């Protein structure tokens, strides 16, 4: 039954730059490639958000060089509404797809999943390589929208039809830009499908001796569940994008109803439905949110244990339960994005119940984390600080979910800044905090050098306070009925809120600037940082059993790894308060 393992192990360390660093089959290199792509993407996305924030705070402020970014133009470098919407669309898409999916899942997952199960590589290294390069192509096609045709699309990252499906007449950026968007996302789906397939197979089939499913680290579990979600979610978005392309390029009308009159022109469509797109999109869209956040669950649990020096409250079983429950529920709640979309009002009630039920596994997870801080010997390094930050931010974001999960309160809050605050906290910021924690925790292993703790702490404090200054006020704006996706606030009930937007803008600029500290820290560590020991954090899982940092090509230097217990054997009063997974010794008694 193991001829595939043969397939896996039969590739030897390649020589030559191209095979080694570009078209590499090594999951570690591919992981770093994904991480690098995400890093590039996240800074692009951040700059876009800066421009948006500047415009929201000071609508008629000329921003030098603005006109370079879009064919939609900016007369006198003053942002036009269509320009703002393009930025918004590109920001959303970049962040959701190329950052929140790439970094925590594809990036760290690729690097550490095989190591944590004791494998020499992924099950299908070639698929793995393809998955990255397809994703990379998707990114290039996507960025092209900035430079070709009539500028980037303005239909938002959700690309609601018919705005996104009738073409140029519905607005600037809807001719070429939207088509590029659809093609790019379709490619992205293919890449992620290949990746997910690989993750699942590796987890199930390539575990080293003694690494039972129950003994897998929580991070591995999280990546595994994420892969399961992705395998189905992206398989749904792919045809949706293809149908969209058909509508745009070949005149079908899947998403366009009959008798549409755009700017006095009667369009020749028959009997499509805009709601169909919303169904197809959100059936992917909601799981996608979990694809972004669930790796964070695993990573944070994993790192928290190493820094609290005790196993997670409830062991791994409860957390695994929560993760699986979340993954399962994520497929039953897409309708809660469509409460006021014109569905049967009864279905809103049906969708709201499972949505509210999601708060149960979330709460249990939070309780487990907080509970395991109790009585800990908590080490406050940057990684653990970001974990604590993750928990705090996740609580704040989760709480606002209560309001949006109910149709009755969603009537008011739907499409206000309350929603923006909610998903930025619970999905974006939380996931990013997970990425930061993982970076500070694992970079020593990935680049073989330690990152600077002082810089790291500065980075944490500025970011942590910053995100609260940015997103907490957005809740208040939402309660004051501040509608989202407005490029300027001209309505009587919105004008008094502009000062709040000014405050948020300043906070956003400062927080963004703080990220440069992180960038510099990473850059500095990569080249001049102190050499990292094999196990700097005194952690137990397999990535710390590799003979070197970074690990050799086959991860364990040809050594056959055997695992004797789960990854969280911490505790005890002794000098050495942890036991490696590879160590037959039993846990030290308290």
């Amino acid at each position, binding site marked *: 039954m193991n001829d595939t393992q043969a397939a896996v192990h039969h590739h030897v360390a390649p020589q030559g730059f191209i095979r080694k660093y570009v078209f590499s089959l090594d999951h570690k290199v591919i992981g770093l490639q994904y991480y690098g792509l995400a890093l590039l993407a996240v800074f692009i996305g951040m700059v876009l958000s800066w421009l948006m924030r500047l415009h929201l705070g000071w*609508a008629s402020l000329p921003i030098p060089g603005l006109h370079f970014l879009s064919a939609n133009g900016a*007369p006198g470098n003053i942002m*036009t*509404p*269509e320009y703002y919407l393009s930025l918004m669309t590109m920001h959303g898409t970049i962040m959701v797809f190329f950052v929140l999916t790439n970094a925590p899942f594809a990036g760290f997952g690729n690097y550490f999943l095989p190591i944590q199960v004791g494998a020499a590589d992924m099950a299908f290294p070639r698929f793995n390589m393809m998955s990255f390069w397809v994703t990379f192509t998707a990114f290039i096609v996507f960025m092209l929208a900035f430079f070709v045709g009539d500028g980037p699309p303005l239909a938002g990252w959700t690309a609601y039809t018919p705005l996104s499906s009738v073409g140029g007449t519905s607005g*600037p950026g809807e001719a070429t830009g939207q088509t590029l968007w659809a093609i790019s996302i379709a490619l992205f789906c293919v890449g992620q499908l290949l990746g997910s397939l690989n993750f699942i197979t590796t987890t199930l089939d390539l575990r080293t001796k003694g690494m039972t499913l129950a003994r897998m680290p929580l991070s591995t579990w999280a990546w595994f569940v994420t892969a399961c979600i992705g395998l189905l979610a992206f398989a749904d978005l792919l045809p949706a994008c293809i149908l969209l392309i058909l509508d745009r390029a070949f005149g079908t009308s899947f998403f366009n109803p009959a008798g549409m009159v755009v*700017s006095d022109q009667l369009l020749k469509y028959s009997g499509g439905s805009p709601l169909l797109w919303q169904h197809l999109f959100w059936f992917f869209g909601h799981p996608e949110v979990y694809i972004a956040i669930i790796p964070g669950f695993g990573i944070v649990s994993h790192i928290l244990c190493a820094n609290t020096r005790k196993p997670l409250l409830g062991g791994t079983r409860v957390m695994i339960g929560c993760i699986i429950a979340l993954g399962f529920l994520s497929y039953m709640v897409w309708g809660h994005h469509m409460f006021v979309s014109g569905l049967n009002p009864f279905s809103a009630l049906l969708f709201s119940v499972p949505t509210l039920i999601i708060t149960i596994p979330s709460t249990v997870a939070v309780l487990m984390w907080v509970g395991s801080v109790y009585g800990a010997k908590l080490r406050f390094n940057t990684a653990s600080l970001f974990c604590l930050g993750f928990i705090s931010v996740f609580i704040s974001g989760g709480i606002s979910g209560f309001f949006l999960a109910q149709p009755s309160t969603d009537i008011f809050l739907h499409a206000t800044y309350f929603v923006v605050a909610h998903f930025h906290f619970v999905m974006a910021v939380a996931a990013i905090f997970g990425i930061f924690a993982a970076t500070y925790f694992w970079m020593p292993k990935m680049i073989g050098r330690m990152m600077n703790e002082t810089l790291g702490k500065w980075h944490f404090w500025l970011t942590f306070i910053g995100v609260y200054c940015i997103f907490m006020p957005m809740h208040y704006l939402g309660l004051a009925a501040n509608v989202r996706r407005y490029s*300027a606030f*001209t309505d009587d009930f919105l004008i008094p809120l502009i000062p709040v937007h000014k405050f948020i803008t300043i906070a956003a600029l400062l927080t963004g600037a703080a990220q440069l500290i992180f960038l510099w820290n990473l850059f500095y560590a990569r080249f001049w940082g102190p050499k990292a020991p094999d196990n700097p954090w005194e952690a137990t899982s397999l990535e710390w059993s590799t003979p070197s940092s970074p690990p050799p090509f086959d991860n364990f230097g040809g050594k056959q790894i055997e695992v004797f217990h789960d990854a969280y054997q911490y505790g005890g009063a002794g000098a050495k308060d942890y036991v490696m997974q590879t160590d037959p010794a039993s846990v030290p008694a308290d």
Partner: protein
Amino acid sequence: MPWKHIIALSVLVLVGSSLLVLSAPPAAPAGGTITGKVTYTGTPPKMKPIDMSKEPVCNQQHNPPEKTQTVVTGANNALEYVVVYISAGEKPSGPPSAGVRYDQKGCMYIPHVLPMLVNQDLKIYTDDPVAHNIHPLPKLNAEWNKSQPPGAPAIDAKWEKAEFIAVKCNIHPWMHGYFAVLETPHYAVTDENGNYTISGVPPGKYTLTAWQESNSPISKEVTVTAGETKADFTFKVLPY
């Protein structure tokens, strides 16, 4: 042999100069003028008052409210905003150096119908404290759709093919006008009395066309002499 050369050169010079002379346009004789009045028969549709309540800033500027401008009539059956132009009988000429100007004031287009030549420079200005978007809906030229926030500089444009292009502002759907892109410099738009005058037309036989936005155009043959030539048009209009 100097003679040969001298002869050759002089022949060349002669031929060249004569070519120059021939190719030089004959001095245009004093052009005639075409004048006339455009009227209608039948009941014209009632122009509805425009409800600008969406945009209070503009609403205040129009008391009593403006009316729709699809069929604008004047005293004794005059039709305003009719474009009268020479549609055939002369060779097209290049665009003049001077550009034309289109204004947005109080959420209305001024003028309602703007005639211009192919490839003539067009500048679109806004005086309003609210953002507009200019959305021409051409059939032959390329469609575009740009928004113009308050205080933004003028939008520059030009049209490559001759056609009558409806212009609208999606933000203020009642804002509606026409770009009459023509190949001839000889055109005029009727005033509130339905009168028009096209001057500087070289004598000859032409086809004169009158275009009204909500009726099919009318053409007639005219022979222009040095003096004044009269050409009236009458549109049949329906109440709805």
